[in-house]
């Protein structure tokens, strides 16, 4: 029993971080119908920058997010204006191919700059845990999860309480109507993309502490993120949180009770089952099936 609870604790702690990473992806999809396959690579990029800062200046990696988040925001904005903007409205495969291309370029660039060895930011607490009775809570995971929750709450406030947030939700719901009420969809799309990518900044910094990474790690991340947003419902932020927690626990339990070998299968299995049985996921909106007028 103890082991089960410990496993669940570990799963939830990871799930919190996953939630932050998935939020950007689901936000981008919800607003502009683009699956940003490069999200994984951007996470790794933020991790590398965090590591470089830590390596050069000793700056605590978790504090590094103060640098990486704005940096990724700018990068996201630039990517949108430079490439994504031109393919809005095209069929889904186009956005997947284009963003896959971006991911490959990012992987190559990171490999050139930092080489393909595994890197890991290891501040003093990376191998320590908090103890509570029979259970242990790895410190890095706890800090990371706490920060992730904080950023998510901040994101939620932006989405619900600010004008920009409302504009984003309007465009997400109905682009032409949003235009009618004075919202410029292109600006909103650019900002949304930038925000979505900015979350990888914070998430990447946290990931840099939790897991060693190399440029090729983005595949593992994007598979997880896709699994999460599919499970939670593509486009739904609360869905991403729920999906992330569930996936974190599922992965950890599979690794413990079945085998670590099958843990990597979990996101893909989730994707297949959900897309085939209930495509809108847990909390996603069921689209009106009308023939369009």
């Amino acid at each position, binding site marked *: 029993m103890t082991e089960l609870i410990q496993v669940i604790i570990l799963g939830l702690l990871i799930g919190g971080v996953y939630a932050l990473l998935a939020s950007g992806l689901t936000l981008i999809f919800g607003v502009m119908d683009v699956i940003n396959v490069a999200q994984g690579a951007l996470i790794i990029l933020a991790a590398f920058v965090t590591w470089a800062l830590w390596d050069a200046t000793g700056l605590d990696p978790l504090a590094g997010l103060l640098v990486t988040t704005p940096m990724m925001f700018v990068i996201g904005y630039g990517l949108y204006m430079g490439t994504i903007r*031109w393919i809005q409205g095209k069929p889904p495969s186009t956005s*997947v*191919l284009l963003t896959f*291309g971006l*991911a*490959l370029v*990012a992987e190559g660039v990171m490999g050139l700059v930092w080489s393909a060895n595994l890197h890991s930011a290891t501040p003093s607490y990376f191998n320590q845990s908090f103890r509570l009775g029979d259970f242990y809570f790895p410190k890095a995971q706890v800090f990371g999860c706490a920060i992730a929750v904080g950023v998510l709450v901040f994101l939620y406030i932006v989405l619900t309480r600010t004008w920009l947030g409302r504009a984003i939700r309007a465009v997400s719901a109905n682009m032409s109507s949003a235009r009618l009420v004075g919202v410029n969809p292109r600006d909103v799309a650019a900002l949304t993309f930038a925000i979505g990518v900015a979350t990888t900044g914070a998430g990447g910094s946290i990931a840099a502490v939790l897991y060693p990474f190399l440029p090729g790690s983005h595949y593992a991340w994007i598979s997880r993120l896709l699994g999460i947003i599919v499970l939670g419902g593509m486009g739904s932020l609360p869905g991403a949180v729920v999906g992330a927690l569930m996936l974190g626990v599922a992965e950890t339990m599979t690794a413990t009770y079945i085998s670590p070998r*099958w843990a990597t299968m979990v996101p893909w299995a989730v994707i*297949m089952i959900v897309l085939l049985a209930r495509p809108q996921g847990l909390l996603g909106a069921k689209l009106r*099936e009308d023939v369009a007028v």
Partner: protein
Amino acid sequence: MSQAVARALDSRPFRLLSGPGLRLLVAAALVGIALYPILSDNRYYQNMIILTLLFAIMGSGWNIISGFTGYVSLGQSVFLGIGAYTTALFSVRLFGPENPGEQGVNPFWFVPVAAVVAGIFAAVVGAILMRTRGHSFVILTIAFLFVMQLVTLNWSGLTNGNHGLTLPLTTWDREYQYWPFYYALFGLMLLSVALSWWIRRSKLGMGLVAIREDEDKAASVGVNTPIYKVLAYVGSAVFIGAAGGVYAYYLTFIDPRGMFDIVISVQVVLAVLIGGRGTIWGPVLGAFILEPLLETTNTELGIGGNERLILLGVLLGLIVLLLPRGIIPSIQDLVTGQREKARGGLVGARLERKPLRVVERAQAEAREAPPGPLLEIRGAEKRFGGVRAVDGVSLAVERGTITALIGPNGSGKTTLFNLIDGTMPPDRGEIWFDGKRIDGLPPYRRAHLGIGRTFQITRLFRNMSVLENVVAPLRDFSWRRLGADAVSGPEAQRAHELLEFVGMHRFADMRAGSLSYGQQKLTELAQVLMLDPKLIMLDEPAGGINPTLIAHIEEMVHELNRQGTTFLIVEHNMPLVLGLCDPVLVLARGQCICQGSPDEVQADPAVLDAYLGADFALEQKAGVS
């Protein structure tokens, strides 16, 4: 300037060059590739061509499901892995040598087995995956690839897991080292291209293109979309599986990560995009551009893995943004575009109608019809979230009538049409057609039973010609006819007749997307007639077209009705409705509030209140109609 260019492109020499001349060029290239190993011992280039042929085969296969049918798969290399492992397992585990260093059964014998196994996977998995579309399908193909990789990795009892499988070394003379692989792949490439070509010119291919253009429309005109899609997926897989078998033997060693690799899938897509998706030779051209480029940059220029990734990524981005259609279609567009500029357009030409030859079958059926209404709806309900679009509608359409369905906007008329033709299932209620219950049937089955429907905003297959649009609808599903030429036989004959009937026969070769709205409506009607339907549902036939054309359509409706076709028409044009139709059904707020003759309906206070308004009644009395 463009006039001169256009004239040049239209001239005989250029036509010779781009027609037979081009074919000669392709033939010469093929002969060159075929003879290369005989003329040159250089195994480095032989290796390069082998890899290129592999990609050409994979691209050609991908093209069938993603180019023709529009279902973009990003995990097509899964079939390479399936084929490779099938061959390896058969030749190592089942028919392997007794001792190391000995030869078992030559793996080439298992290449056809690999093709069959790949096809079986495609059929089974395709049937499941292709219930989804768009984003979901793309993601699912990637998931399929990774799941196969993981299963192969973890099922080590069968596949030897991460250790991989080693195949025996080749037994023949070093001199001809690569020849069997080279020619096997060359042959497979030719077969793959031939399959592509055969599909494209067949009815199957036309159906696939229709699915790509507008899947729901294709279903509503009788194309059996589930089977067509699975056939396309199987066709896209078999030669890739065979190639996988050959490739496994060539490498002599396969492992799960190498054989189920997403980057290879992406490379395949890139190659086809470069050459031109949806064309026959595009995938081959793309492979012959991309593969040598990648190989050469690695070996000659010593470019490392990172630069290669960047190169791939940049190419992918450039192609998607700047040249999404690929080389061959872009050149084709350029040429035909220029040519068409030089010629005048047909769009303004007159429409000339002819009377329609009656089809014997339709008349025979009309004589033998069972009693009772042709279409009956009992208690149908449909809601979208909180909105009850159709709220308990029960009505009947009698045989041989021209029945009108009117009602204010938002009363549920189009939704009701969608329930009848199968575009969406009712939440509750029954729909009966010609004595059979149809509310559980898919749209193409209903089309086969004799329901035809036009759309408020016309839906045609825009990139096909008018004639192709009219030939596309299918009266029933027949395996034998799948392989027939797309535009041929009695169907083509009938299509011409129908086009003459609606007056569009002069536009037969024009691209449907460039027609005017009214012409599209006529073409859509001709499409529907191709099904020899018992019931034709017209959704606002008079909307957005001029009065002369309205009269034209009215004449056609009368003529068809005389021949025995029943009509159900949704219309807002009251004079047309009241003059043409009897009975009239009135819908308001999702319910049928009245039915009867035009006079009865006009006088009904509930109708007047909901829809017509007191003003109209006044205008009628004043004699304006």
